[in-house]
């Protein structure tokens, strides 16, 4: 059973806020999705780990130095910036 506490804890992990008045509906919704996912509970498996598709394997190459993007380009999409850095205010009152 998914409880209100579960939903609060998952939201905390996912960095989402859940308002008090949304909690009941969200818990019910989570329960129905979890019930749907539970369909695999009794599925037989051979216990083999599955780690990739299409037999992918690591491809190694020489480390080649290439030009990086200019700092101002990278900062173009940031809301707040200062001195070539992303700005994250400790507090915003």
């Amino acid at each position, binding site marked *: 059973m998914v409880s209100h506490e*579960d*939903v609060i*804890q*998952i*939201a905390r*992990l*996912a*960095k*989402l*806020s859940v308002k008090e008045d949304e909690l009941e509906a*969200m818990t019910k*919704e*989570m329960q*129905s*999705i*979890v019930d*749907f*996912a*539970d*369909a*695999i*509970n009794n*599925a037989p*498996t*051979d*216990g*083999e*780990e*599955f780690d*990739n*598709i*299409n037999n*992918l394997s*690591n*491809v190694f*190459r020489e480390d080649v130095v290439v030009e990086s*993007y200019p700092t101002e*380009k*990278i900062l*173009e*999409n*940031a*809301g*707040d910036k200062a001195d070539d850095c*992303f700005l*994250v*205010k*400790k*507090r*915003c009152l």
Partner: protein
Amino acid sequence: MAEVKSKIRAINEMLTGKEITCTELTQQYLDAIDKSNGDLNAYVNVTADTALKAAKAVDDKIAKGEELPLLAGVPMTLKDNISTNGIETTCCSKILEGYKPIYDATVWKLLQQQNAVLLGKTNMDEFAMGSSCETSVFGGAKNPHSLNHVAGGSSGGVASAVGGNIAAYGLGSDTGGSIRQPASFCGIVGLKPTYGSVSRYGLIAYASSLDQIGPITTTVEDTAIVYDAIAKLDPMDSTSQGNKGAGACATLKNDIKGMKIGIAKEYLEGIRDDVKEAILNACNVYRSMGAEIVEFDLPALKYALPVYYILACAEASSNLGRYDGIRYGYKTPTYNDVNDMVCKTRSEGFGSEVKRRIMLGTYVLSAGYYDAYYKKAQNLRGTIVKDFKNAFEKVDVILAPTVPMTAFEVGKAVSDPIETYLTDICTVPINIAGLPAVSVPCGFNAKGMPIGMQLIGNTFAESTILNAAWHYENATHSTMFKSAEMGVKL
């Protein structure tokens, strides 16, 4: 019998034969967008200036007598999760409002090398999470065959634009059916390539082990042309393997006599009667062309949907962790501290379906549930892969419905998430197994809405499925394909 004419080849001949300039053609498409996009809501960002500039470059090439690549000057569109340098790319989410990538996705780079003309970016379910395009922050794209019906999702905008003749072709992305389902709903062709054949570099990630970019076009040959252009090895995507064959165009018209086409009974369970009838009719078309229809079982198929939603949401919860308001996109205006800023930004920036999937993904990855859900789903993924592998020892191609039904009416899909998830039953197994599949039109229901079928191939067997699709299309085109009454007529 006259062969179905490729739209891309037709445009190429018009341009090189100087029947029309690329600027004139592009303007025709832009005028058609102006006229129809209010109804279709296919485009979320029309890039008229960029398009006309690219068209002018093509005209200059023609004037100088330079050789023109096949895709040069062909007006096209990209789904709004494919990065375009300097052009807003939002994934149709508030959280990426105003975001302009500083680099191009590899697929877009490849198409620009062929002088492609980008008309604009098209609508999609927010972060490609949805089956109707209606989770888009811009509202859903409509079906060119009936504006009361959705175009499908998540690449609904591309399918609506291509089906409505306001783009000659487009690129979408397919994580659980997002190219094939809207192509099926809009009566056109859509290919989900083998995992690894098309670079994902610059595709804004939903579920990285399932995502794949592919073409949406009006003809099978167009799909083969675009696939050949974008299936290239790319060092920027560590899972990229490129196109391992000679290319899909080379073998498109080969004889299919003796080709073994598999039908799995599990694929015909729970689908609407009109769709089932269309699939069985397609079997008869193939029989008449000398192909052999082989019945086989896919027992693990029944677990595909929960496996898909567990894995896709788990990957999404991790991939979407990057949206914190600091480096790009939306940022909440007021907050107390850093944690509050991130939580508020995400809660205000993401729509409800995205939040639902992030929550489920976080749940299945959290302590105490990881083994029961994520690990179990990964094991079952292995079983599904094996089931398909066994099938391809007996058959060359698998024939299946693309969707168990035709396009939903507007507003019907968003009311019940689980009901909507169930409609992905035919498409998700292909992403789980990393296989290629193409959806082609195979009939209409009583209301005139298109029905689609999938031809599924073994790993890197795009050439085989497109070869099978081309023959079906040529045998049935006059009855199975109907161009919507709008957009540019060539």
